[in-house]
């Protein structure tokens, strides 16, 4: 029983990280129908900036703030400079661009910070069963999700962003600058991605550190339904828990396989994910 609780708690805290990264994918997918494969790379650069800032100042939290700001800026820049020019054609073009950006940024990270792992500290104490760091992961992702919900639901910016995502033309006719809203969406998504990166990276940081996490995050986003932020959160926690149980009871070498199995299972029952809204057929 104790073992089960341990596994549940550790599953929750890693699930929170998958959920955050999945959320960042869903925000962008909702607005542009693009799966942002560059998301882990944007997060990676943010975490490396945090590493540099923390090293220079000796303060973890300054680095943490720097990571979030970097994420915000990188997301906005990516949309403005790379995605905007190919947007409006097939989403496939934009997806290829994000794949390219992933490779480039991982290469750049290796060149700037070297491919050797650097030690990277946890936000808080990481020892023991459900440590302060685990609490922090869970709490910060929950806070981010709540803030995002409040932004979407209660602010004019959020209403504009949703309108721009659902029906760009009607939004424009109501005076919404749709391009600006897309930039804002990428910026916010990438900020949440940076948060996920900060939580996922320790104890070491190297250019491929987020790859595995990203695979699980994609699985989480797809399981939840790619166009539903709430689904991404549930999907993330679900994947986190399942993988934790599999790794604890059946052996850690089976986790990747288990993620695939969950994905296949869910998609064969509900092809659009657990929480996707039924879409009206376009006539």
């Amino acid at each position: 029983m104790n073992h089960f609780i341990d596994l549940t708690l550790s599953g929750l805290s890693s699930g929170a990280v998958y959920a955050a990264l999945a959320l960042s994918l869903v925000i962008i997918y909702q607005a542009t129908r693009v799966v942002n494969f560059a998301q882990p790379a944007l997060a990676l650069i943010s975490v490396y900036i945090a590493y540099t800032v923390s090293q220079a100042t000796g303060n973890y939290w300054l680095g943490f703030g720097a990571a979030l700001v970097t994420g915000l800026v990188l997301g906005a820049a990516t949309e403005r400079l790379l995605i905007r020019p190919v947007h409006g054609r097939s989403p496939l073009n934009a997806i290829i661009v994000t794949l390219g950006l992933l490779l480039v940024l991982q290469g750049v990270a290796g060149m700037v910070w070297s491919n050797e792992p650097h030690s990277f500290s946890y936000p808080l104490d990481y020892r023991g069963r459900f440590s302060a760091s685990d609490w922090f992961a869970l709490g910060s992702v929950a806070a981010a999700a709540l803030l995002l919900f409040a932004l979407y639901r209660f602010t004019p910016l959020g209403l504009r962003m949703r309108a721009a995502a659902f029906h760009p033309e009607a939004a424009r006719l109501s005076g919404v600058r749709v391009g600006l809203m897309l930039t804002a969406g990428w910026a916010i998504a990438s900020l949440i991605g940076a948060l996920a990166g900060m939580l996922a990276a320790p104890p070491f940081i190297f250019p491929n550190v987020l790859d595995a996490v990203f695979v699980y995050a994609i699985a989480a986003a797809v399981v939840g339904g790619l166009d539903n932020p709430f689904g991404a959160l549930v999907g993330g926690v679900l994947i986190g828990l399942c993988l934790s149980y599999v790794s604890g009871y059946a052996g850690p070498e089976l986790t990747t396989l288990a993620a695939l199995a969950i994905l296949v299972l869910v998609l064969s029952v509900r092809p659009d994910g657990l929480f996707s809204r039924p879409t009206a057929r376009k006539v």
Partner: protein
Amino acid sequence: MPDDDPILSIEELSAGYGAVTALDRVTMRVPRGAICAVLGANGAGKTTLLRTVSGLKRASSGRVLLDGADVTRLPAERHVHHGLVHVPEGGGVIVELSVEENLRLGGLWRAGRRERAERREEVLELFPRLRERLGAPAATLSGGERQMLALGRALMARPRVLLLDEPSLGLAPMVTRQIMRTLRDLRAAQGLTVVLVEQNARSALAITDHGFVLSQGAVVVSDTSQRLLADDRMRHAYLGF
């Protein structure tokens, strides 16, 4: 038609899709407070005309003047600041949002919170049905309610000129009549100018002051609705009834 001081003046406006010319030097003057119909067969360029005027489509040449200000090259999202609002075919209601949110969206560009609240009251006054459904997702509205919401959202912006693309499409005649009555009331109360595109020429001419007939992207006739209704030759040639 008196055209000394038109609120909307379209001058030699052309637009096309690739090599195909959809609008061919269209010139129209819409007087302040008029309710005008743009008529014509399928593919005559009616929808393209509205889309070009509202900035959704780029004009290849010509000008659009709104109360004297050149708005031809403005992006669509700026037109609302100049008092021109376009309700596209089908209304453009965002079905993923609630009725309330759709309405709110229409007034967002305006900074004043109190003004927005007043507008909202006015619109709900006009369409009491919307008040009952405020919290409902717009997807659950009937066709008539959707058209009311589309119109209500447009009115939230307090437009001076309203472009309506087939407002009666798929609606019961009674609903259409109610909407037209509302437009006439607004004209009387606020001096609203309306340009509406209609497929059904007879009913459109019955409720408008003035008609423009488009054929192959050009204005072929411009006259009062009354005279257009009476002119058999023109009706047979362009309007098919």
